[in-house]
């Protein structure tokens, strides 16, 4: 398989980047998208050129580290992470444009690597429950209804990759926050900090410079974990409840 790749190159956070074109031959359709980039980087290394920096870790689709904008779609044309995207989703002779996530809250560190520290800071503001450690309580002492447990678990599959922000025309992180709010809000353990959680997380979200949600739905379509739009409704409802409670 022969490909033409248009890739964003940027030396560091302060530099101005540009799109550069690379020709790559001998790509197997069984390669993952990141393995295809590995092949390109080996060739660049051999030529003494700076390899293309991109994030990856588990390469199993579960850690949320990788994430590229591929031909204008976050994580490319399939509903999966970039590492689980395979070259069989492309054709011989294809031209592929690869860009980093674009959001001012996710500044480019280098080439295709962005700093998603903003998500960590949103989590620091309430994406947790406070509990005493040391003596694990009996798990069955706090009953959780099955439907609530299921919804909570489904939303906990969010890996914080940032595809929702990347796909959103407003650069909003509402789907990410909604997933966390729903995941913790469905459980009894999440109740004591529920109001404060939504207010602080949204406060940090706004402070980071993410945009507001316009319920367009691009985020849910791009989400590799298929987090549905109704978590944003839950986020809004929790915020409205906190407002009513005077937070």
């Amino acid at each position, binding site marked *: 398989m022969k490909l033409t790749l248009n890739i*964003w190159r940027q030396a560091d956070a302060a530099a101005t980047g540009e799109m550069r074109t690379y020709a790559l031959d001998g790509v197997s359709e069984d390669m993952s998208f990141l393995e295809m980039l590995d092949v390109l980087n080996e060739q660049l290394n051999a030529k003494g050129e700076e390899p293309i920096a991109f994030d990856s870790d588990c390469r199993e689709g579960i850690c949320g580290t990788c994430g590229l*904008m591929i031909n204008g779609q976050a994580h490319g044309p399939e509903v999966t992470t970039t590492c689980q995207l395979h070259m069989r989703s492309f054709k011989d002779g294809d031209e592929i444009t690869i860009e980093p996530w674009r959001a001012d809250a996710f*500044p480019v*560190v280098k080439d295709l690597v962005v700093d998603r520290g903003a998500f960590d800071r949103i989590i620091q503001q309430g994406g947790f429950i406070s509990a005493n450690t040391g003596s694990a309580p009996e798990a069955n002492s706090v009953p959780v209804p099955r439907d609530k447990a299921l919804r909570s678990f489904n939303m906990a599959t969010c890996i914080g990759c940032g595809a929702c922000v990347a796909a959103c025309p407003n650069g909003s992180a509402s789907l990410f926050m909604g997933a966390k709010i729903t995941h913790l809000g469905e459980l009894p353990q999440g109740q004591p900090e529920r109001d404060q959680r939504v*207010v602080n997380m*949204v406060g940090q979200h706004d402070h980071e410079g993410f945009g507001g949600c316009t319920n367009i739905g691009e985020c849910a379509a791009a989400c590799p974990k298929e987090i549905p739009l109704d978590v944003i*409704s839950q*986020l*809004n409802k929790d915020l*409205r409840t906190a407002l009513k409670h005077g937070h």
Partner: protein
Amino acid sequence: MTPVATHTSAPTLVKGSRAARSTITLKILMAASGIVFIGFVLVHMYGNLKAFAGHDAFNEYAHHLRTFGEPILPYEGLLWIVRVGLIAALVVHVASAYALARRASTARTQKYAVKKNRSSSLSSRTMRWGGVTILVFLVWHLLNFTIGKINPSGGATNDPYNLMVDTFDLWWMTIIYLVAMLALGLHLHHGTWSALQTLGLTGTAAARTRAKTAGWVLAVVIAGGFSLVPLFVLLGVISK
């Protein structure tokens, strides 16, 4: 290996966040004021259909709007109560839309070279320009029939029914109104669902489907209902 600058500014954790100052509160204000408008356009559309009942019925309806609630309310009393409410809703709706649109434009200053839309509807992507279109139309519409009473055909302006027929007898006036109704229909299609979602009323897949259906129904009924009168004037069914 050359050193790499990883940050351009120091990140901070905010303290003392307030729900009332969040972007979601701005959205809730947009949703609530939008629902006020939905109620208004429904009633307004129903009133316009009086044109099919003829000259006297239409004018009597227009006059009755002014004497509604008399003698407890003064002449045009109810009308002014509604107008003040609508003006307040308009200020809230436009101001929060402006604030949110500005935020969105600064949230991604470096645009994508290639960006595809995967699932968003045309109506959802045209909310901002559609809103501006409706606002511009509103100015003309009020000059035409309420504040200015401008008769584009040059005839009399003291008779609501005749002013309406004179206006829509001009094909280009009908076109302007139909374009505005297209903008309104698109705005209602996304706006209805979006308002319900913003108010946190679409927590399940079934509720989401219902909200989207409500958007379709309101868009077709309201924009379609409004369009009937100018179309039937142009076709000569409604005439002086």
